[in-house]
């Protein structure tokens, strides 16, 4: 029975990929079944833009479903929720009216909520609870915004919104935009609405985490893009600058948390926050350019953002699958208990390596191409004549550059501590390579990462077409000789194919020369050098915590680390220490500055409200009467 469900999900994935790619290339269609649901009926429309996200969902759920068959084993629970989750994610981009959208959106949230709760442990229950609260707070914002827009435009169809919205005045549209952006950004996991993400992603089974991170949070961005570019008419420039700043904060904040986290899957979750931040920077740039009538640049920025959406779908699902394999083989997600897996799980280690190199934006892999495009779009802000706006762009550029450097550090740490050197625990010592299906799934995603990077000039064309449906403008990227992407008539250019060839040649030639001159004598194997000490154990290795220490110290204004030392001495003398405990936890400023006060305020309000809850029916009748009188007085 579970097997059938996963096979069904594979079929869904393949169908979604095919339909989505066809849609991206221009095969539009539409389905209307008015009687199926109330308030407007079920209404699906495929256009180029929806096609991209359907293709993303399909292409990501195909390997994850294959992976799931090996990963879940005999576990029966969660199979149906998984299929529903995949199906709902494929429907969300197709929804063409409010009711269809809300249904698919909520189905997606509920299915993923059930999957987060699957483990049944207290920590997963907590994760599920936070997830449910955040996702429904987001939904409340979305529904309010959509209902307002529906009321003002007199329709619940998205196409009608697009035509009617430009007639509304700017404050009204901005209010709706703020509500929708809040709702969508909460789903996308940007800071400071990210709190559910680092809890829910690790709690879910890894094939689900892969989809939640690779696809579901992107649907939040899908909604943001639809709302910002289509539903609400021309955007004032503060939408763009807000998104630029939110994206920059998310990118840097996300990667900083990822950099210090010990939990492999939570680290990946934080890194999703970072990557969503990078995408939001691209979206914000596009909106700001659009507001300044620089449509070609807006198209470039949007193309970069969409490219990163696709790329993150590929490498983050790959990384979550690889992390899942590690959890499967060792039973732990703690970096300090891993290590040495490159020898025991070579396939998984290779997959994680490709994912890590891609997400660290190393040329010529895919992460590099989209970050490069984002850079080139942002750098051209000099064409906008407003100094204040230029400064915001410059900050975003600096944030992007810092994020790039920190992401390298983060994934060097994840791979170097988690996979290299000696095993740090018995579990890692006895790890074994995972099942064939899981390996196949990871290799599919790994190959996708390489292809999306090396074949950039092929991939970028349909993406420009898709982006042009939101921002109609002249194509900002031309394909020159040698598969070169030429951005904005000579402002910048790049050929990942040429870089690949050059890198490969520059490895092959020195190797060949050394072989020919006979200088490649076989190395002698001997133990690691450490000043003549006699044996090497994993306790001598640099730990993940130590590796992140320079960052904790440099960014202490952000981490706010606390130093806790407990020393228990012998009663006879304080010089005989019987036990010593050291901890250096970091604190979360978002929690401390936003959510704790909010939580306290809500509890205080609830206590205040409790005072009028006497439990006596007479009192309640009196309240009803009072409200009635009040209403009559105002009416």
């Amino acid at each position, binding site marked *: 029975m579970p097997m059938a469900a996963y096979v069904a999900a594979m079929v869904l994935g393949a169908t979604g990929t095919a339909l989505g790619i066809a849609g991206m290339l221009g095969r539009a269609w539409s389905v209307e079944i008015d009687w199926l649901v109330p308030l407007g009926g079920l209404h699906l429309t495929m256009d180029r833009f929806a096609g991209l996200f359907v293709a993303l969902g399909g292409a990501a759920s195909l390997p994850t479903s294959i992976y799931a068959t090996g990963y879940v084993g005999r576990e029966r629970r969660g199979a149906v929720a998984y299929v529903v989750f995949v199906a709902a994610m494929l429907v969300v981009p197709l929804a063409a009216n409010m009711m269809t959208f809300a249904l698919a959106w909520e189905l997606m949230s509920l299915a993923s909520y059930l999957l987060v709760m699957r483990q049944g442990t207290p920590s997963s229950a907590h994760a599920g609870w936070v997830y449910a609260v955040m996702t429904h707070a987001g939904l409340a914002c979305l529904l309010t915004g959509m209902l307002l827009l529906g009321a003002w435009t007199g329709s619940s169809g998205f196409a009608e919104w697009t035509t009617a919205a430009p007639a509304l005045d700017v404050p009204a549209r901005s209010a709706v935009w703020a509500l929708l952006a809040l709702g969508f950004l909460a789903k996308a996991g940007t800071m400071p609405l990210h709190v559910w993400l680092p809890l829910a992603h690790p709690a879910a089974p890894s094939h689900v985490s892969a989809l939640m991170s690779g696809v579901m949070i992107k649907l939040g961005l899908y909604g943001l893009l639809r709302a910002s570019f289509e539903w609400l008419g021309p955007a004032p420039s503060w939408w763009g600058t807000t998104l630029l700043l939110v994206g920059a904060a998310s990118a840097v904040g996300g990667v900083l948390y990822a950099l210090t986290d010990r939990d492999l899957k939570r680290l990946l979750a934080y890194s999703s926050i970072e990557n969503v931040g990078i995408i939001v920077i691209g979206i914000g740039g596009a909106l700001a350019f659009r507001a300044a009538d620089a449509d070609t640049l807006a198209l470039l920025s949007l193309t970069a953002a969409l490219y990163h959406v696709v790329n993150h779908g590929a490498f983050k699902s790959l990384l979550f699958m690889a992390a899942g394999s590690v959890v499967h083989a060792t039973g732990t997600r703690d970096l300090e208990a891993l290590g040495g897996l490159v020898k025991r799980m070579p396939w998984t280690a290779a997959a994680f390596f490709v994912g890590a190199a891609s997400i660290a934006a190393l040329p010529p892999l895919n992460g590099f191409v989209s970050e490069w495009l984002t850079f080139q779009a942002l750098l051209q802000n000099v064409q906008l004549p407003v100094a204040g706006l230029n400064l915001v762009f410059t900050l975003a550029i600096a944030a992007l550059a810092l994020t790039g450097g920190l992401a390298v550090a983060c994934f060097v740490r994840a791979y170097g501590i988690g996979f290299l050197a000696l095993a740090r625990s018995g579990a890692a010592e006895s790890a074994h390579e995972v099942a064939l299906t899981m390996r196949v799934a990871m290799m599919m995603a790994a190959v996708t990462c390489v292809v999306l990077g090396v074949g950039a000039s092929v991939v970028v064309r349909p993406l420009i077409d898709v982006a042009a449906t939101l921002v109609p403008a002249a194509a900002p990227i031309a394909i020159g000789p040698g598969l070169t992407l030429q951005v904005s008539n000579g402002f910048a250019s790049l050929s990942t194919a040429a870089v690949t060839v050059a890198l490969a040649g520059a490895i092959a030639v020195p190797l060949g020369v050394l072989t020919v001159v006979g200088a490649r004598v076989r190395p002698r194997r001997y*133990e690691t*050098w450490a*000043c*003549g000490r006699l044996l090497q154990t994993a306790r001598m290795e640099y730990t993940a915590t130590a590796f992140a220490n320079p960052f904790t110290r440099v960014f202490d204004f952000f981490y706010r680390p606390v130093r806790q030392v407990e020393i228990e001495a012998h009663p006879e003398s304080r010089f005989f220490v019987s036990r010593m405990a050291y901890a250096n936890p970091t604190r979360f400023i978002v929690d401390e500055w936003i959510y704790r006060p909010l939580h306290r305020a809500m509890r205080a309000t609830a206590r205040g409200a409790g005072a009028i809850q006497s439990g006596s029916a007479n009192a309640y009748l009196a309240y009803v009467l009072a409200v009635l009188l009040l209403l009559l007085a105002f009416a």
Partner: protein
Amino acid sequence: MSSVAAGGADVLRQLRLAARTGIVTEPPAGEADVARLGAALSREVHARFGRSLHIRQVDAGSCNGCELEIGGLTGPHYDLERFGLHFVASPRHADCLLVTGPVTRNMAEALRHTYDATPDPKLVIAAGDCAGDGGIFAGSYAVIGGVSAIVPVDATIPGCPPAPAALLAGLLDALGRRR
């Protein structure tokens, strides 16, 4: 900004000092009393290392007298770098182990590990009387003996401690550079 100005003043002072002092390195000293390598080995060393010898210094239990003298080698007066000799931080980078001190029981295993950790081809030079045969510590319960009791030794530089000039001459002899 004041620190930048101070940095600028530092640079100027340094330049003036360098100009005033000039080069104080002396020409290498005369023949040293060193147990020479065999002629064949010497040729081999010359061919393999040319004018580049990276040295890892190993203290196998020395009184640190020899270390003081070795430290003198890197200063302006003796300047061993002019001959392509260089002290390195890891035996992996080294061509030559410069061992001082009688080999104590606690350091014997560490010395053997260091020897094994050094890539071939490699030289071992025992510097000082203690490294030669245990010196005044010979026979102590804590000492195994000279370096040759643990690892094969290619050359010995006698002296208690050998003066920097003697060390330099010995190293150059070991390199076959003085013939």
